[in-house]
């Protein structure tokens, strides 16, 4: 592949950003239109990746490689396998939807807002396509900045607190992650006599278990904060509640997957013995299960609609990490599918909360009730999102959860038993939320005149709804795409 397709995908939002910067700030409608065009272009250029991806080939595809800082062994090396393909596609779709959903909701500093989103998009795609640890780290940190501003400048009343909490948690994690990556870098120098950050080079390393364990924990903090895993999750509810809808959607749907992706791309392949170490696996599995149950239980008692969805993310992401550390094909494949599914369903849930918030300027569950009467289309969309999130068969959540749990069961039956409880609880908190917001009589007069979904809102929701059905009904292409890369990871950890 010499046509730089992947670079085009990576740079399209950047070009969009540069053009955006020359549009005068006063011309809001042009800014809006251009940002949407750029996001749509970003999605369009990513489509050929799907059509030209060869799922029967092993290794990375669309690889591009150039020296960047040769003296330090830093390369511009990008490429994708099945795992990154799905996450890149998720990013371009969600990126587009996040920009689209901000059409009316953002009125202040429009230019800055869209600029941040396009920058964010570059960073996220960069994280998923990097084949060089340094490049990965640059993109990883690049994501942090725009998200910090999106929360801090366009967020709710406690936005500054939330933004700084988000920033500090992630920063501490990132620094530890950086130390881990640097350790690998120097160990590589020691063993091979030359500098390289390239993942393929780092994979050649042969490290004693103790060293691997140290590095594992360093990386762990970087990734676990992002996922977020219990007990490093407390930044998430605050960040979500304060973030504007578009920010929440990107944060939950895509950014959290950077953490799980890190585990799959770095921890497992580069530190296979540590990743398969009994104690480490046991600790992470237990933390994942705690996240599943804890997130669900705390969701159950939330009074803020958005916070409830945020905690449910903790629960759902617990399934993803559990699947990864089941260290078998089912666990990992299920985890990736669940990551995509979570991106879709949680994206939907946040979009829906945002739509209600735009109408009512409150998210307190107690202020609602009976919305199904005035907003029937909204109620249907919400029901679909809810059942997809709760893992009902023929919707995406089921396929991911089922496969993860099957993998977990193969690894350790006790894990699966505990994790399945999370599925029971998911039904409880979601149905209860639905009952309190959508069903019953209208208890607040302000809700009587709420308008139903507009065509633009429908256009934002429909693609995601269609996607959740697709994965639920015919997930085979996803299993095919993931088979090879997952088999390679599993083979490494089982050596």
């Amino acid at each position: 592949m010499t046509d730089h397709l992947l670079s085009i995908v990576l740079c399209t939002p950047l070009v969009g950003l540069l053009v955006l910067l020359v549009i005068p700030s006063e011309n809001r409608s042009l800014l809006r239109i251009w940002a949407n065009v750029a996001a749509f272009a970003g999605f369009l250029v990513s489509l050929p990746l799907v059509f030209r991806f060869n799922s029967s080939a092993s290794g990375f595809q669309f690889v591009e490689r150039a020296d960047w800082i040769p003296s330090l062994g830093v390369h511009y090396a990008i490429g994708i396998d099945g795992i990154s393909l799905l996450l890149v596609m998720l990013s371009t779709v969600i990126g587009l939807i996040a920009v689209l959903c901000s059409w009316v909701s953002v009125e202040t500093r429009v230019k800055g807002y869209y600029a941040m989103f396009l920058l964010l998009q570059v960073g996220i795609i960069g994280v998923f396509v990097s084949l060089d640890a340094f490049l990965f780290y640059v993109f990883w940190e690049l994501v942090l900045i725009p998200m910090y501003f999106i929360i801090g400048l366009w967020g709710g009343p406690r936005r500054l607190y939330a933004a700084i909490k988000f920033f500090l948690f992630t920063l501490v994690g990132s620094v530890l992650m950086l130390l881990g990556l640097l350790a690998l870098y120097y160990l590589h120098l020691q063993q091979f006599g030359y500098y390289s950050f390239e993942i393929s080079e780092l994979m050649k390393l042969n490290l004693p278990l103790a060293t691997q364990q140290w590095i594992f924990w360093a990386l762990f903090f970087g990734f676990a904060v992002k996922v977020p895993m219990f007990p490093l999750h407390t930044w998430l509810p605050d960040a979500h509640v304060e973030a504007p809808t578009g920010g929440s959607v990107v944060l939950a749907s895509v950014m959290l997957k950077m953490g799980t992706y890190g585990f799959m791309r770095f921890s497992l392949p580069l530190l296979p013995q540590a990743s398969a170490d009994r104690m480490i696996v046991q600790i992470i599995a237990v933390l994942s299960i705690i996240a599943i149950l804890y997130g669900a239980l705390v969701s159950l008692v939330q009074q803020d609609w958005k916070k409830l969805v945020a905690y449910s993310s903790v629960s759902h992401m617990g399934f993803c990490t559990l699947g990864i550390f089941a260290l078998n094909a089912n666990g990992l494949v299920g985890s990736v599918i669940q990551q995509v599914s979570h991106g879709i369903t949680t994206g939907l849930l946040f979009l829906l909360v945002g739509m209600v918030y735009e109408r009512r300027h409150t998210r307190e569950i107690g202020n609602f009730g009976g919305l199904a009467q005035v907003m029937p289309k909204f109620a249907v969309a919400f029901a679909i999102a809810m059942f997809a999130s709760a893992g009902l068969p023929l919707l995406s959540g089921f396929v991911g959860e089922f496969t993860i749990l099957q993998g977990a069961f193969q690894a350790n039956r006790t894990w699966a038993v505990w994790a399945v409880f999370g599925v029971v609880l998911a039904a409880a908190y979601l149905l209860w939320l639905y009952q309190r917001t959508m069903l019953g009589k209208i208890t607040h007069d302000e809700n009587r005149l709420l308008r139903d979904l507009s065509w633009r809102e429908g256009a934002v929701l429909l693609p995601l709804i269609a996607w959740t059905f697709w994965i639920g009904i015919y997930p085979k292409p996803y299993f095919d795409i993931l088979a090879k890369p997952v088999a390679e990871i599993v083979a490494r950890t089982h050596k």
Partner: protein
Amino acid sequence: MQNLWLIPAFPFAGFLINGIIGRRLPKIATNIIAVGSVLLAFAWALKAIFALGDLNTPYVEHYFTWIRSGEFHVDYEFVLDRLTAIMLLIVTGIGSLIHIYATGYMAHEEGYPRFFAYLNLFMFFMLTLVLAGNYLLLFVGWEGVGLCSYLLIGFYFLKKSATTAGNKAFIVNRIGDFGFSLAIFLIVVNFGSLNFGMVFSAAPGKSEATLTAIALLLLVGACGKSAQFPLYVWLPDAMEGPTPVSALIHAATMVTAGVYVIARSSVIYTHAPAAMEVVAVIGLFTAVFAATIGLVQNDIKKVFAYSTVSQLGYMFLGVGVGAFSSGIYHLMTHAFFKALLFLGAGSVIHACSGEQDMREMGGLRSKIPITFYTLMCGALAISGFPLLSGFYSKDAILLAAHHHAPWMYWVGVITAGMTAFYVFRAMFMTFFGKYRGHHHPHESPPSMWIPLVVLAFLSVVGGYFFKVPAILGTMFPTLEEGEDVALMAISVAAGLIGIGIAYFLYVVRPGLADNLASRLGGLYTLVYNKYFVDEIYAAAVVNPLISGSRTVLWKGVDAGLIDGIVNGVGSQSKGLGGWLKLLQSGNIRSYATWVVFGSVVVILAMGIAGHGMFSGAAR
């Protein structure tokens, strides 16, 4: 190719049409689509069954692969064998009648097209459930019918009690699914497949421990769906749904899915005798337990709801003692007479303008005669009156129970007596004596009473015409049991005694029952309040879970402990507030920039310190 997929596809199409454009269609079009799609499914099922002949070997249709992970794969595949054939005809046949009935019963309700869309969607999932050729596809139907049950129980979504009942049904079923899911995982691990054919042919070679575990976990799922102790609590509440829903979903079809799954998995169960014993004991206990509650209820639908729980217990007893075909036999006859009882109850409620309390009824015999006579057929059938449908199936189960363990037979007989009592108590309170209500009871329209007549006919002769044990003889191991006239006579007598006592208490000496109730005092209160099981669950499980989550987990661990530590660490240096001030003073941008590019500096610095900046052997 019989295109079995068309059987569920017809009602699914009905769901789509009525669900999407139903509100813009005239009522008659909604009716034609809703009823027509189910009739088409019925016709297609009949056509397929007749075209396939004796069905001694399962007929399989494979469509495409759903999930593939390594060697393991799950396909969309349908299977038609004798068991499925019976289930198909019950579901589509009874389903058609209930759809027709509902066109009359729901005529004046809000959300008419929505109701039929849900009902058709239910048919789609129920037919998927019985046609499924593997456990996971069965689970799709299983969850799908649960979804529709939720939607239909909460159909009157303005009523809080209705939506709460819907939630309860879904969540309790999820608890059952907990077991079902684990059973599926265990099957995959041990068999490498979920396909019925593969699993059942390999099952005899597996260890008894494994098979017992699978069987018990499936039983947990079955207890949820078929409302067995201790997961039965959702079914009585489910009566919040419109009466046709109670008849179709919560009496005739969906709640029998648990029995179906156990019968379908008979190969596993027969190799796990301990699990069979548990099935039988749970079934028997539920049968007698629910029957006692049914004795004292005053809401006509609640009586039949507990009756359903109890009769499902009978079916579990049947399959549990190894009489799989008898369990299915009772499943079928129960579908006839319980659908009839519910639809008849609906007709009574309809006549009394929505009244469900039997204390507000009475003397309706002359006012709604068709309802009365048809309902009488159902009441006699469930009481095991000789030669009616319930007689055959109940007798088959009790006989098998006696063969297995005589004490089970005796408990079953006592339950049969109680069954006859509470059903006739309901009959007498409703139709005999003087009318005690304040409405003007009127007979229902033909769309409602015609299905009643058909079901009454089936309740009377269905057991004789459709000898399920003979049909299923080739599928299940037959139990060597002789006809035992004495045992049969005893159970018939129990039924007659039950009817007699009800007649005495509610027709001959009305008032005596209340007297008796007050004399029993505490015991009566206990049973009348359903043994306080709901209250116990609330106090022992639900409330601690919620308050614990709120005070301990959320306020305690999350906000208190974790954030406390984080903020505490912060305050050692500057505190989050300190950072805040720093950042608010206009340094946000420079700070943020520093972080990213500072990292680069760190790398460079470490490089210099370690090896000299450019001395390394750069590639």
